[in-house]
Structure formats: structure tokens, C-alpha cells
């Protein structure tokens, strides 16, 4: 059974100068365990597609089912519930909570989902190679380490799908590699499907499937 299916997904924005078709009829079926890299130039619709997949944005038209169930497309609490249950998210600028330690950042996400498991949190940090930094604050660790914490955080509630938007966009190439390796390792261990949006062609080596977008449409879809 596919993890999720999107059919003819559209997302249009009404601007003063006319309608902007950020997504113009996207069809996509994703199987569990895939590692997808979503490539495309600026304005191609990659982030908009990611936002729709994450139920952050509401499509103008089209269908979206997750594990054969329709994904809520209205009501912010229903969409948030969906995200809480199914989606992990990693941001470009890490967005760790600065007042909490590395370990506390992960425990907080567990708490938000109704549970608290220190052992699991420690395991996740070990998975991303940060078990020595548990009591440090984000400002006391490097950018790459912060991004790895963010990855561990996004896995804290065992999501089915992990989304990353330019998650190495703020890192140098060496650190990017370390972060991506940590991500792959963690996702394989947790058996989590991932979709990473990027404009960096070098990221495709981490993918099992490469999707290119342009002008709001998928222009190529290649299994690697």
C-alpha cells in the first residue's frame, strides 16, 4: 500500500497581477521507505508541494490521501493533529528552542505527543552522533550539530514521513554530508520515508528516487 497519494494537486494564489499557479496539477505516489529528493529551481513549487504534503497549506484543488485516508484540508487543529501523528519536519535554520538543552528539545516534542521517553531520546541522539552533547544548549553547539539535533527531534514521535526543506542550505559542504549521512542512518534505522527539498544537485546521491519540478509541475520522476 502506498504511504500517500496525490492526484492533480493544484495550489493557486490570487495576486494583484493575476493568479500564480504554484502547483499546477501534481500527481505523486510515494511508497514507504523511499528517500526522495525534490529538486528544482527557485519558484518551481517544491516548497509549496512540501507544505501541502505536511498539511501546512490547503490545496486549491486535487486529492491527497495518506495511508488511504483523506488528509484534512480545513480546520487548523485537524491539520495539526495529522502532522503530529504522521509528519516529522526539519527546517533550514534548525529552529531549536534556545532555552532548552539538546535533550530537552527532543523530550518536549515527545511531551507534545503525550509521551516522554528519555531512553528513546538518548537513542536518537546516539543515532545522530550527539550522545555527548545532551546537556548543551543550541547556542553552544555548531550548526551541523544543531541540524542533527533537529533531525533527532523530528524523529522523536516516530513519524511515518519526514520532510526537510533545504535542510543543508545553511551548512558548508562537509557539514552537509555529515548531516545527510546522519539523516539517512536515522531514517533507515527507524524505517521512515523521507522527502527532502533542495536546489543542490549534489544531494541526489542520497536519494532512492529523484523528482524534478518546474513551473508547478513534476517534470521528471526517476528511481535511482
Amino acid at each position, binding site marked *: 500500500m502506498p504511504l500517500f497519494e496525490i492526484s492533480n494537486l493544484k495550489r493557486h494564489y490570487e495576486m494583484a497581477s493575476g493568479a500564480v499557479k504554484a502547483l499546477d496539477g501534481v500527481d505523486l505516489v510515494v511508497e514507504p521507505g523511499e528517500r526522495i529528493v525534490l529538486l528544482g529551481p527557485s519558484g518551481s513549487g517544491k*516548497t509549496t508541494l512540501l*507544505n501541502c504534503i*505536511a498539511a*501546512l*497549506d490547503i490545496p486549491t484543488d486535487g486529492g491527497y490521501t495518506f495511508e488511504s485516508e483523506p488528509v484534512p484540508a480545513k480546520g*487548523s*487543529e485537524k491539520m*495539526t*493533529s495529522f*502532522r*503530529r*501523528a504522521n*509528519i*516529522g*519536519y526539519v*527546517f*533550514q*535554520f534548525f*529552529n531549536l*528552542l*534556545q*532555552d*532548552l*538543552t539538546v535533550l*530537552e*528539545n527532543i*523530550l*518536549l*516534542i515527545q*511531551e*507534545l*505527543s503525550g509521551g*516522554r521517553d528519555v531512553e528513546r531520546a538518548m537513542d536518537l541522539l546516539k543515532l545522530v552522533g550527539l550522545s555527548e552533547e545532551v*546537556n548543551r*544548549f543550541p*547556542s553552544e553547539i555548531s550548526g551541523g550539530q544543531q541540524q542533527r539535533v533537529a533531525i533527532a*527531534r*523530528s524523529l522523536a*514521535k516516530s513519524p511515518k514521513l519526514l520532510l526537510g*526543506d*533545504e535542510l543543508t542550505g545553511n551548512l558548508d559542504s562537509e557539514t552537509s554530508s555529515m548531516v545527510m549521512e546522519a539523516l539517512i542512518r536515522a531514517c533507515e534505522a527507524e524505517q521512515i520515508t523521507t522527502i527532502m527539498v533542495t536546489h543542490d544537485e549534489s544531494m541526489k546521491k542520497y536519494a532512492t528516487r529523484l523528482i524534478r519540478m518546474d513551473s508547478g509541475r513534476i517534470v521528471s520522476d526517476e528511481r535511482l
Partner: protein
Amino acid sequence: MGLLLLKRLLRSLWRTRLRLVAVVLLVAIGVFAGVSFGAYGKTASTIYASIYSDTDDGVNLPDLWIESAGGAPWGEEQASNFCGELRASWNDLSGGLAACEPRLKVDGVMFWDDESGEPSVVSAIWHGIDEGEVHRVWMPEHEFVSGRLAAANDEVVIDSHAASMMEISVGDEVEIGAGSGRMTFSVVGVAFHADHLYFALPGSIMPATAGTFVTGYLTDEGLERLGGYSQGDANYLLLDIEGTPAYDLLSTEINEGEQLNTVLEGIRDEFGEPYGAMVYDRSGVESVEFLRADSEGAEKSYPVVTGMLAIVAGITIFLSLQRLILSQQREIAILRTLGVPKGSIMPGFILAPIVLGLIGVILGAILGLYVGAPMMMGVFEEMLGLPVVVGLSDFSFVWVNCSVAMVIAALSGIRPAFIAARLQPLEVLRSEHSVKLSYRWLQRFTHKLPPALALSLRSTIRKPMRLMFTFMGVGLSMLIFGSMQMMMDSIEDVTLGGMDRNIGWTAQVALGNQGDAPVVAWATDNNVEYERSIQLPFSVVGENKQLVATGLDQFSTDLDGSLSAITLSVGEMPAVSSTPLEVLVDEGTAHFLGWEVGSLGTVGFGASEVDVSVSGITTGEMARTMYFHRSDLEEVTGIPATSVLLAIPEGLDFSQDLGALSVGITEISGLRETFTTLMNQQQQFFNAILFLGVLIAIVVLFNTLLMNLSERDLELATLRVLGASIWRLGSMLLVEHLIIGVVGGILGAFISLYGAQAMIASSVQWAFFFKIEPNWTIIYSLITTVVVISVALVPFGMWRISKMELVEKVKTLG
């Protein structure tokens, strides 16, 4: 370029227009309150000056009073000789003697059927006034006044306050007495008199209510007939000095009337003993002094009120600008990187608070002059019962208020302007995604807590300066309504509470010429417990201040031992017949004279002087009082009693019997009703102040909590994207708001308490002294109010989070 930068800033400020409205409102409220109070004070003092003046519209208030000790009148010849001797020996130091007018003024009663038709005896003061050169009856053109002066010996002009309360009008017949039976007089006029502009029973600062007090203005012959006096009898000489010299104000340390004082002392020294006379200036006349103190208090208070509210506004402006700079520091850094000089950044941040302040000031001044001032004048007419017959001509208080508010608003922008100008571009651009951490000690303290709770605590204290200013703002706003609550509570405790604690008598019978014997006989015949007492005005030698000497038969701290108990704050009860005489003084007297237990002084009753020693200090009196053993006071003054206190059992009718034997009966039930009515009347005014204070606290807390929220947009959006439910985030907000509410409430309550005590301590005067004691019920209610306001803002925070455009935020985050 400057204009473009200003435009940029204004657009940024416009995005936070809700906070701007709050700031403008705060300034406006401050100026409004200040202008309203100032208008009251200015109008009051202008009206009084106009009333007291020697003009066709004024009453020509005397400059000195010479009163016969004990009230016993001088005969016509004696009074005339007295005036002659005064003229002959007059010291022109303070001006020539323009008039010396004998006057008769006596205590009496009015027999009146109250609202329910029950007959009652109302305490009264009757004046014998014809045309008079000085101290005339005041009859302005106003709806409160009607008729004419008394001309015949069976005519009376009733004071407008009493006429209004007792529904007496021109053409009515009234039955009155002054110790020589009851007589019927025709009411020919309703007017005012300077002795009773503040209409209260002698010795009381609480205004009289219907059926408790009346004053009237008869002809000389009329009063002589009423009281059985001889033609020309007088117990006052009223002296009018040319140029109306200044007199020593009781509210200041300096002596404004040194020259008049010299003349006064001279008269006292030369004529005090031969004529048995007491001499005093305007400060010794209760009504004149009380009204002066009231208008002075209002005039002193308006800059303080405006200042306090402007400080709260200033704090809000300061915090808002700081927050704005933080949110704009990247932009400012970019501008600086592009070469914009510091001098171009600063003006906008200095101008913004000035503009906000100006809008608030203009709004507040207009509302103050056209809404607040007329309202306060309405209060003046309603509460004091005095017609507002002169309008405002001096608007200096408006400029003072506006200036105070503008200065504070302008100053609040200076530091933010400097911060903005001194931002270093490189530092900002490097650290733009860093957030100030909370303190290590806090982190250690909270690390064992659940992360959500730890985050709440640490976020709350992340910006200690903002928190401190918020608490200051909340504290000042609570000072406004908290101090009013505490003041009302203290007054209620002193008046109504004091009655319950210290008064065991049901009626106080004022004695006339017949003395105490018939009243004591009545009490004995009717098996009624009684005590004799003396109340006399007197002064401390060397001080130009009037007190009330109270002579008691029994001294006790509870009602088991006396019909009139005393609350002793320090010291011991006085011993009888000691040398020097042992006395108790009230804490106000002790405060102003610098007396303590063991202090020695000399007091004067007319010509007699006696040394006293303070054995104890009492608390709970609003009038300045010195307590003597009645027998000691009788020995000094020759007066055995001025009233008899009676504990009359319920059901025993006494008014007709005792009315005929006395010149007035004060019933405790009437006093209690008076105070209760007054407290209820004050309730509307009190509620308005309470509302104002709560509104300001809401604005201050709202502003801070809104800033806290907007600062955490990044954090909150992250948590929302990661799946945090609105209720989860709401519970985190609740914890933060509770902390701010509880801490802010506690700090604010104590600022309120100590601030109120300091305010009262700085504004008490001889005529009006009391202290504010901590009342834990009020303190808890203040804390609860702040907590409730703080927690009530949580739903707004949750609404704001739920409305967050996560897609836009994700663009920023991603």
C-alpha cells in the same frame, strides 16, 4: 532620506497599531485625570476666594476671630469697649483695622418631622446677622439660593445645604430653640454662610446628612429672643483687616502670616485674660480650613496623578520601542551597512514617542476640559452642595499636565533611540538567529522539570528588564485603585469601625444654659447609664492650631469600662489630678506637633493656660483631639460638662424630653447612617477610580504579553509545525501568564500599599489626618485582580497562535 526612514519607521509602527492605541490611551487618560482634578482644585480655590472677598458678591470673611471662651456672651457695652480698646491699641503691622463687629452665634435645635413623619430634634447653630460689614450671609444668583435676609425678629434664613436635605423652602414655618423654649420662625430665605460652606457638625469632617444638622441666620433681635439673651450680647468679635493679610497655613512648615501672627499674639496677650477670649485666624475656622485643604489637595495631586499615569505610558512606549528595535535590528543593520549614519536612524525613534505623546496629550486635554472638568464641577456641586458661580480663568494647570506628560513620553524614546543608533551591523547580521538565553541559575533550577514547564519558566524570565518595567507599570496602576480601596477601607474602619469599637452611648445630649443637672436627673429617673463629658475647642500655646479638648469621666480601652472607649496605640491612660495634667493626644496631633509619650506642653483655654504631659497616644480619630479627665478639665475651664452621654435602652422615647433640656441631641444611629450614606455616595466615584486603575493594568499587561508572544513567533510556529496542539500551547501560555500575574500581583500589591501610605503621609494636613494600615483582604484582592487579568489574556494568545500563517512562517523558518 530622513523622510524615507521616517516613513519606514511609521509603517513598522503601524503594524503594531493595537499597542500604539494602548500607549496613546494611557497618555490621554493621564492627562484627562490630571486636567479634571486640576480643574476641580483651581475652580474650588477661585470660588472660595470669590466668596470670601470684600465685594458686592462676596461675604467679606474676617481675618481674625475673637471668641468668648466657653461661648458665654459679652454684654453690649463690654463688646463695644472691647472693639474700642482694640482700635486704640491696634498694631498696623498687618494692615489697618477696617471693622470690628460683634456677633452672636449659639448652639440650638430645630424640631423637625423626619421623612417617616417621626418628630426629631436636629442639632443646630444659629447666627444673629443683620446686614453686617463682615462675615455676611452669601446669597449668589443661583438655583440653590432664594428669598432675602431676615429683617424681623421672627424670621430666619436657613442654610441651603440643610434646606435642600430637609426640604425646607421660603414661606415655611419652622420650630427652633436655643435653650429658651421652642419658637416658630418664618423661613424668608435659603442661603449660605462661610462658617458652613463645608456643611458638617462641629468637630466632624464628615458632611452632615438630612436631619442631623441645620444652621440658620436670624437678625440680632431674633437670636436674642430665641436664646433669651440681652440686646447687644455677643460671643464673637469679627475683625476685618485692610488688604486681607496672609495667614499661616496649617499645611506648610513655613509661616506665611508672620505679621498677622504677631498681631494675633498681641491681642491674645493683652485681651485674652481680661475678656476671657480666644483669638484665631482663618485656619481656626473648620469649614474655611477644610475647603482650603481640599482644594489645595486637589491642586497638589493633579501633577502627581498625571505623572504616575504618564510614567506607565512612558514605560509602555519604552518597551514597545525596544521590541520594535529588536524586530528591526536586521533592517537597521542593513541600513547601517549601506552607509546610513547614526544621526539619521535616531530621529525617528525620538520623534515616534513625541508624536504618540502629543496625540495622547491633545486627546486627554480636550476630554479633560470638556468632559472631565464639567463632571468634577458636578461632583463639587453635588458632594459639597456649593454653587459653581465662577468659571475657570487660569488654565495653567492644563499646561502643567500636558508638559509633564510630554516630557515623560519624549524621555521614554531616548534610550531606544540610542540603542538603535549604536547597533553594530556585523554583530547583528552574525547573531540574527540567536536568542538571548535565560540565566544559568534558572536553567539549573528548572532542568528537572518537564520540558514544557521549563520552557515556560525560562521564557518568562528571558527579558528581566521588560518584566521589571511591566511590574512597575502594573504596580503604579494598582497604586491608583489599590490606594483608593485602602483609603476607603481605612476611613470606614476609623468611622464605622471606630463607632462599633469605641462608642457605647446611644445619644449625646448637648447642654444649654440649664447645665447637666436636668439631663442627669432624667437619666437617673429613667435608669439610664450616663457619663458627663466636655468638648471644647482650644489651642496649644505657641502653635496656631485648634484642637478639641475632650474630657471623659472614665478612661477605658473597651466598652465594659466606659460609654466612650479609646484605642491606645502607645503609652498609658492618664492619671487624674496629676501635675502636670496627664493627657492623651491623637496620633495626628502627635505627628504634627512632634509629641511622643512623655512630651510636655502648655495649652490655653481662653485666658487660662495649663501644663500638660502626654501619657499616651490614641489612634482612630480624624479630628485633632486631646483627652483629659473631665474633672481636670472642669478645674481648668470652670465648665463641668458640655454634653452628657447616655446609653438609652431601646424603646425608651427621649427626644421630646431631652430636646427641651438641651441644645441638641446626636444619636449614634444617625451618625452611623450618616457615614454609611456618605460611603455609599462615594461608591460611584470610587468605582470610577477602580475601573481606571484596572483598565491601566489591563493595558500594561496586554502590551507586555503581546510583546512576549510576538517575540516567540519563531518558537511557537516551530512547535505548531511540529504538531503542537493549540491547547498544549495554551497550557504553556497559562503557566507563563500565571507566573507573571502572581509575581506582578504581589509586587504590585506591595507597591500599592507602600505607595498609598507614602501618598497619604505626604498629603495629610492638620485638618485631615489618618494612616493606611495593611488590609490583607484588599491585598489579596489586588493580587487576584492582576492574576485574573493576566490569565484572561491567555485566550487572546491562543487565538493569535491559531491565526498564525504557518505557510508564511515556514518560509521564514525554512
